[in-house]
Structure formats: C-alpha cells, structure tokens
C-alpha cells in the first residue's frame, strides 16, 4: 500500500495528468469544446482543493525520495494550479475570438501543469529534469498555436531552439553533479559534497540552465519575442505558472542541494545576475510601445527582484520569494487578461499602447482592473505587489545585501513610468477614432475580478484562510515547521 500512500502525496499532478488524457481523448472524438473546457476547469478546481489540503499537511518525501510533499513543494503546487486555473478561465473567450479554440490546447495546458508540479516538488535531479522537460515541450507547442502567422511560428521556433539549447546545459550540469557525488538525490548530494571542481562546474551549468528558463538577463533574449508571438492568455501562463514552478525548483535546489557550502560564490554570482536583470529589464521596458513586449521586459525585471530574495539565501529570502511568486502570479495573469480582452476587439491593434487612448471610459470596469494590476506590478501600496517587494528587499537588507536592495528600489521607481504610461493613455488621451468594445463574458470578467480582489486583499491584510500566509511560509524554513522537519 506504500504506492497508494505515495500517490496520495502527489494527487494534484495525478489529477492534472489524468484530466489531460481525458481531454485529449475528448478532443479526438470531437466532444463539444465547452464540455472540454468544463472538464478542464473542474479537474483544476479539484486539484486546487487537494493542493490547499497539502499546504497544511505533513512534510516529507515520497516515491523513493524522488518528490517532496508539504512545505515549499506544496506551496509551489498551489501556485502552479492557481495560475493554470485562472489562465484557463480567461483563455476561452480569447481563443474563440482568434479562432484557435481547440480541445488540444487544454490537453497541452494540463500536461504542462503536470510537468510544472513535478518540477515544483522535485527532490531529485532526475525528477527536476523530467518535470522541466514535460513542461517545456508542452509550452513549445502552445507557443506555436497561431502557426499560420509568421510571428506565431517564429516565437515557437525561438522558444524551442533556445529552450532545447538551455536543456543541454542543464543536463550537462546534472551529469557533472552526478559524477562528482554519485547520486542525484538532493539530500545525498548535500551529504556527500566535498567541493570538487567537477561539482562546481556542474552547479554552474545547472544554474545557467535555470537562468535560461527564468529569463535572467544574459539569457533573456527569447522572452520578449516568445511573449509577443504567443496568444496573450497563454503568454500569461508562460509568464506566471511556468516561472513560478521553475523558481520553486530553484529554491529547492538552492536550499536543499547547495546550502551554504563554504567557499562557493553562488551568492555573488546570483547577486550580479539579479542586478543586471533588474536594470536591463526595466530599462528596455521603458521604450516599448507594444504592451505585450513591455510586460515581457517587466517579467524579466520581476525575475531580477525574485533573484534578490534568492541571493539573500536566508529563510526570510526564500519566504519573500514564495510570497512574491504568489503576488506575481495573481497580478500578472490579471494584467495579461485585461490586455487579452482588449485584443479581442478587432477595431484597432490593441497591442500598441498608442491605441489605448480613451479606453478608460469605454469599459470602465476593465480599465479599473487593468489599473489595479499595473499599480500592483509597479509595487505601489496598498496592493500585493508592494508587500511582496517589501518582503524580498527587507530579506536582502537583513542578509547584508544593501546594494541589491538599493538597486531594486531604484529600478522599481523607474518601472512606475512604463506602467503608468498605459494608464495615462487610457484616461488622459483622446481616442483617434470612434469604436465600441465588445462586452466581456461572465466567466472571464469574474475570474479577473477574483484576481483583483486577491491583489487588493493580500496587499492590505496578508492572511490566509488559516493564519498568516507569511508565517505559514516562514514556518517551512524554521525548526518549527508543520511536521517539525529540520530545514526546508
């Protein structure tokens, strides 16, 4: 019965995988698309409930130490499932409007979600690799969804080539770490390590692979192109769920596999990358006229802020990163969602910020929602983005990385320009020509309103259904964790 017990700790991913198969068969047999959509949403809601249960459950490892459950892993699962659910909810109307509403899209999303959960709960380099690739291969397909258009195929090609290239580095890193330690299990690797050059080289290559996936700066070239060419609601999926899963995996690797090894300068390396990521991401975002590209560069900048928390390397830092990921998931899906709504209107090209003139008075609810999400992304109180930035930068200061925090705050200040620019166009410019916007569908609208409520609620009062969210996250990294398990 061990097997059933193990499965019980891995239920959200199991549900996603099973639902993916069901949805795939349904689309083969030409079941109505709304049924497929319903099955997808239902399975994700069930998975979400199980993920919430695991959040307060015991901490440990299952499947012969391949996957972790509880603690950081459970929160990662929750983030991924939440992000996926909201992306699916906002996808239907948009994909219908661009005539690419196929059942296979949902199957791919569910399979990618399985991979993301596997990645976020990995406790072994093999699981890390398999989860990452399951996710990536499905995302390559989704990136090329609009394959009849040159931009769609181009974004898929760029994503695929650079993604596969980075996989090579990641895998070589895994091979060298395995060679240096004789194991692929995080705990065994920590126990066995004497710092050999082989291990150093392996860790460096592993981190390079990770930096590609989270689009940290020297490895960010694919991000804007892919985000621009992909259907907007799926871009939201790329930008949030996949990034959240990769960051959680990175936290697990940093905290479980390479914690505080003397004489290893990973903190410095990550600090440098964080600084150039924050500066370059924000700087290039300033000059973007295309809203999706602007959000792509902003997501690069956010990866920089997240790396600040990782560079701190303390319990506070990891907690801050997890909280930031939650905030980022909520507000970024919201922002992409409203942009997807505008794009459904064929009157003008609503990826160009100049065409946002006067939009604020056409559909006031949508404009207010977009304003809330952008304010939150800019880190303005009282929204969740502010609190998340506060936790991350405070952790950096406490760990003695003053420079990182200073650069972070300054670049945040610069970022306010390009977020507010959209709002200036919406509210203070006259439209070039007369047009009417379509009405948003009910599911679409309420999904965005829920996201908006989360954005405001967690900015004002960061309380989870059972106790403070930040305390819950901190407990993963202190001795008083839910099951008293030492370490994360």
């Amino acid at each position, binding site marked *: 019965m061990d097997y059933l017990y193990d499965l019980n700790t891995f239920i959200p991913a199991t549900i996603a995988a099973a639902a993916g198969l069901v949805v795939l068969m349904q689309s083969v047999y030409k079941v109505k698309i709304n049924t497929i959509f319903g099955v997808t949403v239902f399975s994700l809601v069930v998975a979400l409930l199980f993920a919430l249960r695991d959040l307060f459950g015991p901490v440990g490892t299952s499947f012969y130490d391949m996957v972790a459950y509880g603690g950081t892993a459970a929160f990662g699962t929750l983030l991924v499932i939440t992000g996926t659910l909201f992306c699916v909810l906002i996808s239907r109307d948009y994909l219908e409007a661009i005539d690419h509403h196929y059942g296979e899209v949902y199957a791919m999303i569910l399979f990618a979600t399985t991979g993301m959960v596997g990645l976020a709960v990995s406790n072994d*380099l*093999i699981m890390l690799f398999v989860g990452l690739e399951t996710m990536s291969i499905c995302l*390559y397909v989704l990136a090329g969804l609009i394959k009849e258009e040159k931009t769609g195929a181009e974004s898929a090609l760029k994503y695929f080539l650079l993604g596969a290239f980075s996989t090579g580095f990641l895998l070589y890193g*895994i091979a*060298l770490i395995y060679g240096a330690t004789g194991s692929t299990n995080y705990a065994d690797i920590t126990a066995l390590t004497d710092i050999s050059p082989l291990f150093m080289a392996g860790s460096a290559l592993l981190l390079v692979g990770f930096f590609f996936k989270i689009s940290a700066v020297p490895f960010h070239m694919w991000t804007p192109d892919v985000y621009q060419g992909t259907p907007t609601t799926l871009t939201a999926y790329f930008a949030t769920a996949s990034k959240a899963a990769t960051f959680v995996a990175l936290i697990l690797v940093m905290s479980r596999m390479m914690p505080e090894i003397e004489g290893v300068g990973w903190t410095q390396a990550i600090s440098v990358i964080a600084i150039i990521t924050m500066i370059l991401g924000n700087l290039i975002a300033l000059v973007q006229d295309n809203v999706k590209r602007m959000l792509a560069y902003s997501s690069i900048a956010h990866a920089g802020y997240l790396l600040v928390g990782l560079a701190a390397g303390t319990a506070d830092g990891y907690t801050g990163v997890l909280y930031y990921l939650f905030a980022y998931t909520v507000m970024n899906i919201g922002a992409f969602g409203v942009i997807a709504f505008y794009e459904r209107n064929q009157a003008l090209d609503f990826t160009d910020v100049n065409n946002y003139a006067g939009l604020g008075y056409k559909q006031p609810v949508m404009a207010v929602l977009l304003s809330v999400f952008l304010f939150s992304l800019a880190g303005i109180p009282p929204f969740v983005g502010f609190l998340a930035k506060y936790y991350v930068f405070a952790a950096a200061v406490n760990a003695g990385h003053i420079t990182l925090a200073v650069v972070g705050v300054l670049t945040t200040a610069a970022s306010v320009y390009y977020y507010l620019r959209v709002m200036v166009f919406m509210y203070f410019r006259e439209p070039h020509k007369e047009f009417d916007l379509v009405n948003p569908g009910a599911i679409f609208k309420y999904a965005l309103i829920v996201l908006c409520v989360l954005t405001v609620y967690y900015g004002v009062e960061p309380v989870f259904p059972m106790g403070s969210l930040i305390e819950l996250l901190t407990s993963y990294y202190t001795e008083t964790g839910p099951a008293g398990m030492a370490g994360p």
Partner: protein
Amino acid sequence: MIGIDWYLALSAVLFIIGVIGVLIRRNAIVILMCVELMLNSVNISLIAFASHHGDITGQVLVFFVLAVAAAEAVIGLAIILAIFRNNLSIDITKVNLLRW
C-alpha cells in the same frame, strides 16, 4: 582498460561541438541536430559516471534523456515545418520579424 577520463573528454568535446554548432549554423535542422548532439554527449558522460560509481541511476537517467530527446525532435521538426510553410526557408536569419 580505457579510463573514465577518455569518456569524459570525448563527451566534453562533443558537447562543445554541439554548442558551437548551435551558435554558428543558420539552418534550423542542423541546429536541431547540434542540440541532439549536446544531449547525446551528456549521455556518454552519464553512462561513464554510472559505470565509474557502479551505480545504476545514471543509466536510468539516460533513458529519460532519450525519451525527452525524441519528444523534442518531434516538436522541433513540426515547428520547423510550420516555419518552412510560412517562409519557404528554414534559414533562421530570415526569421526576424520579432526584435527588440
């Protein structure tokens, strides 16, 4: 008896050839082949290390890598086909609509 060093050197050389190929070649299919070369050079390392440690884990990972490489080739060729239908060319320097 050939020592592990030789296998690792072969693997490193093949990996570097793969990386250079990805960076300098312009034909998308050749780039795909170079990526496969990178993955397979890692397989050589993994098997050498597994044999060196007398541990089966590395060889198991090789099977996963093979499966992933196959899936990646399928998706990659499909994407390259879509590019060819649009551009009538798979020269990646001509795939340049999206920039900055």
